[in-house]
């Protein structure tokens, strides 16, 4: 018998950065088996110039690897895609589909028009964005969701069934920027099932060493995956991302109409947060010798990246563009310290 309400387990994600990371970490952050996969990955940073999907504005897309593919690649998630036609054929409508999926332990992920969800009034524009759905309440007719769009940061919110239905219906296959990567010309949703009871992935020190080396030498990690995609000549990797982001921030705050997009800085900050957690994990599990000095030194890297991100938020409020000179100090301090620490870590791992 169908339940009246159900919420699948989620925790506030250790890192947020992008919706795909926030979703994966919402489901798996606290899972001891998944930590072995998480800490073996997310080491390499990359960035490249793109145009915003909806505004056409230039932006620097920075991300940790694996990027948006992480939900598909993680061995502790079963990731399925279902077309709109399948959803309607199996369940009649999207509301029943989401409820049945949650009843079966599946989280739902897909692109919705969040303009329709966020605005009570009818609006003449769309804001297609990925939404993470992890629960429902039939009495209140709401879904439990996670997203960045509701506030200035990643947060959880309930959304009425009717808004979800409306937000789903108005997006065309062409506007579904995520699904069309997997299934061109089709519209659909993803179902994600946590499958982590059986350990299938041990901490991969060989991968950590290889990726750390590539990160420190700014080498092309994507080159290993040319069977999947081979159009990334403009991508910057590793430590050089610091320079690229610094140049981008300088360009965007000094533009005729300054832009205060913090996303690249936030990704870099999350990368440092996760690296510090990785170092602690490897020390606590015997992969590295415990060394409080290393952790304290790396905390300075984290603090400088946070200061840089917060400085950009401050400038967006005060319009004190001149304060932007401080970015260089914060990013160069973080870069210098990080390189020094991670070369030592790599040397220790290679000497094992």
């Amino acid at each position, binding site marked *: 018998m169908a339940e009246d309400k159900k919420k699948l387990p989620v925790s506030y994600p250790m890192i947020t950065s992008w919706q795909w990371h926030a979703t994966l970490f919402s489901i798996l952050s606290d899972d001891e088996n998944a930590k072995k996969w998480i800490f073996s990955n997310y080491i390499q940073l990359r960035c490249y110039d793109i145009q915003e999907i909806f505004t056409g504005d230039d932006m620097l897309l920075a991300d940790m690897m694996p990027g948006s593919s992480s939900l598909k690649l993680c061995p502790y998630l079963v990731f399925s895609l279902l077309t709109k036609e399948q959803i309607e054929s199996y369940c009649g409508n999207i509301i029943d589909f989401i409820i049945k999926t949650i009843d079966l332990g599946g989280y739902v992920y897909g692109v919705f028009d969040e303009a329709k969800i966020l605005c009570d009034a009818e609006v003449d524009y769309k804001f297609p964005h990925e939404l993470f759905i992890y629960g429902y309440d039939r009495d209140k007719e709401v879904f439990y969701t996670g997203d960045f769009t509701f506030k*200035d940061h990643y*947060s959880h919110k309930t959304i009425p069934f009717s808004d979800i239905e409306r937000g789903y219906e108005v997006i065309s296959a062409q506007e579904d920027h995520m699904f069309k990567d997997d299934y061109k010309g089709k519209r659909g949703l993803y179902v994600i099932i946590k499958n982590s009871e059986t350990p299938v992935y041990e901490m991969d020190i060989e991968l950590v060493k290889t990726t750390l080396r590539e990160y420190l030498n700014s080498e092309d990690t994507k080159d290993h995956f040319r069977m999947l995609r081979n159009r990334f000549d403009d991508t910057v990797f590793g430590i050089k991302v610091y320079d690229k982001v610094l140049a981008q921030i300088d360009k965007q705050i000094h533009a005729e109409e300054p832009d205060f997009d913090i996303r690249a800085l936030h990704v870099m900050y999350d990368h440092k947060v996760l690296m510090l957690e990785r170092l602690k994990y490897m020390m606590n599990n015997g992969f590295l010798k415990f060394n409080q000095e290393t952790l304290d030194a790396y905390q300075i890297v984290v603090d400088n990246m946070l*200061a840089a991100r917060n400085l950009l*938020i401050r400038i967006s409020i005060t319009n004190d563009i001149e304060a932007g000179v401080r970015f260089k100090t914060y990013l160069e301090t973080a870069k210098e310290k990080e390189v020094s620490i991670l070369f030592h870590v790599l040397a220790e791992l290679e000497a094992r």
Partner: protein
Amino acid sequence: MDKDQITKKLQEVIFEEMPEIEGDIDMHASMTKEYGVNSVSLIRLIVAIEEKFDVSFSDFELALSDYDSFGDLAATVEEKLA
């Protein structure tokens, strides 16, 4: 300016910057859970505090994790004014 005066003035700044807050402000309650403060709204509040109290916060003093409650912000202002 004594502690009570700082608290009173800080509450005025909070009401100005966060008009969604109604009623008495619990200075000991969690800023994030009780009042929905996030990284951006905290920095907006700190910028206003700098102006109203004529103090300055470094870029390293803008972290949300450094302040559990508005009382922590009041204590930081008190230290800066001492």
